[in-house]
């Protein structure tokens, strides 16, 4: 079986990027089913519709770069290379989970691919990425740190403090805001004084880009520009990814607060469909191969689900591990 690192390296290939987006989509669908079935407890935050951001990002970063991400992190984890069984294992609270089941859906982590424990506190991961960038700067080398967070997080103090600090210290950090137009059930305009979030880089004299978050290679290109700046010692960048989450915020939320037709309009620019069309048009793959990929992904995820269902739950003693060094 492939390792997480193999899965990561594979993303250099366009077809693998398409496949990975399909995998994330399929995965999130299963998580939703398993949640409704009652075998996933607590909460889940799905990222269907945002796959291009995760995959475009992962395709560009090195495994030694550091990534902080949020509770909406299944896609980022899979994109970075984490095995679907380990991610699902964590979500289902099994010993095969990334952190043995003590974390759950909101707390995924795999150091081998640079995924720091994902953050359930909005804004919590942003300064932590700044600190990872500080390590890169102080320890030498040219690794970078990336903070992934949502539009809603740009209203919390930690966002502001982090961008200012990274700018003043010229740290190798890329701030990636997934502007999916909602923070929980609140549309961005009801909570946020500006809706084009790249604007906010102006408070820190920081370069920024607005990126079409539905186009995986656009995401990758923008991230590459920002990462190059960071690796070259030119400091941080804010990237605003315009995207959309098809599911509601979490759990059973179906998004009834969304205006009619909004979801459908975004589905019309589905990142997987767009990329599949582009690859077919470019002759990289055939339509038949796309279908085959999709079937293969479905099959693999079927197996993963079956496997994790059988995986053991942790013993109470597991709660006492890893509290201190």
């Amino acid at each position: 079986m492939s390792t997480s690192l193999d899965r990561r390296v594979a993303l250099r290939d366009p077809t693998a990027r398409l496949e990975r987006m399909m995998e994330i989509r399929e995965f999130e669908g299963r998580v939703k089913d398993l949640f409704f079935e009652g075998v996933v407890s607590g909460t889940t935050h799905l990222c269907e519709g945002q796959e291009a951001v995760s995959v475009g990002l992962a395709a560009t970063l090195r495994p030694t770069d550091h990534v902080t991400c949020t509770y909406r992190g299944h896609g980022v984890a899979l994109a970075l290379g984490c095995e679907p069984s380990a991610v699902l294992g964590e979500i289902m609270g099994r010993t095969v989970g990334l952190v043995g089941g003590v974390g759950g859906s909101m707390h995924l982590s795999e150091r081998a691919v640079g995924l720091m424990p994902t953050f359930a506190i909005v804004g919590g991961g942003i300064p932590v990425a700044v600190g990872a960038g500080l390590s890169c700067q102080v320890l030498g080398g040219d690794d970078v740190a990336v903070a992934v967070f949502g539009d809603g997080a740009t209203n919390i103090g930690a966002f502001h403090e982090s961008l200012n600090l990274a700018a003043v210290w010229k740290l190798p950090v890329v701030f990636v805001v997934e502007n999916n137009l909602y923070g929980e059930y609140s549309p961005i305009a009801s909570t946020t004084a500006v809706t084009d979030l790249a604007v906010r880089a102006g408070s820190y004299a920081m370069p920024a880009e607005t990126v079409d978050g539905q186009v995986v290679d656009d995401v990758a290109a923008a991230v590459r520009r920002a990462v190059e700046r960071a690796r070259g010692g030119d400091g941080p960048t804010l990237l605003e990814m315009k995207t959309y989450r098809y599911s509601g915020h979490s759990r059973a939320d179906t998004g009834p607060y969304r205006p009619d037709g909004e979801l459908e309009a975004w589905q019309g620019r589905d990142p997987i469909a767009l990329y599949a069309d582009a690859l077919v048009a470019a002759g990289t793959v055939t339509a038949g191969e796309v279908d085959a990929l999709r079937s293969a992904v479905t099959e693999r995820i079927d197996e993963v689900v079956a496997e994790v269902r059988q995986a053991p739950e942790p013993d109470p003693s597991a709660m006492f591990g890893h509290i201190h060094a």
Partner: protein
Amino acid sequence: MTKLRMNQAVSAALADAMREDPAVVVIGEDVAVPGGVFKATDGLLAEFGVGRVRDTPISEMGFLGAAVGAAATGLRPVVEIMFGEFLGVALDQLVTEAAKLRYLSAGQYGVPLTVRASVGAGLGFGAQHSQCLETWFYATPGLKVAVASGPQTAYGLLRAAVRDDDPVVVLEPRRLYGGRAEVVTGDDGIIALGSAEVRTAGDDVTLVALGGTVPVAQEAADGAGWGAEVVDLRTLVPWDVATVLDSVRRTGRLVVVEEGPFSGGWGTEIAARVASELFGELRAPVHRVTSPDVPVPYAKPLETRYVPTVEYVREQVGELIETGRTPRPWWSREGAHR
């Protein structure tokens, strides 16, 4: 009397408070249009409008601070902090500002602010959304803390908190939101801050519980071979020292039942005080039945074990009564701790 779920009792309390006093406003993330993620503010927007029921940006320091300022200048805000942990980004406004504003203005400005926050484990929300965090509010003169243990206390304590002219934190154990019970609303349903409730009579032991452990302690006592006075503390700061001392004087034994780590838990305050005040009058050492010293784990079998269970409480209390000695906690018995 109507039968209400605890989240409905909360929204009923808020609605009654808002009807009584036009200065009451409700502020928080997704409290207005969506009616709260736990549906504890449902219906308020429709009745009271956007001026008084306000969805906020994700900025706890900002909107909690705004509530402090609003409270000092004529409003009576009720802030929802969706998960108690989020006070970690805003604690300054509560402990260092709100609690001291009256003092630092020689009484010119008061802060009639209520902060509601959901707390506790049991819903599978993991280590950063399952804590109780009572001690964040300890040792802060000027701040009161109440904890709901079901629909009636959720209603009654919240009503008292909103009427109170000082800042009050009301913690709501989130795993109780869905529980339903008869609730007395209106003035008769209001529960004075600082008053504990002795729920049952019993000769052998006093069980002091708070919030989420009240139903646990009650159930443990109900089916037990020993008789307990189960005390719902209801207000943690200031707590009802007289009622607890009276009870323990009668029973001669005290067990504090806590959700949360053993080391540094809120119950140390109760235990320390009672052990000193009733020195020489106790039949057994004061005992604290708590969770182990671990972050709240996610996997169901772990989380279930984390919060003291009915059986565990029953067993611990039974052993204390029988032996007169402090029972060892489950994690040191079974060698579960590495």
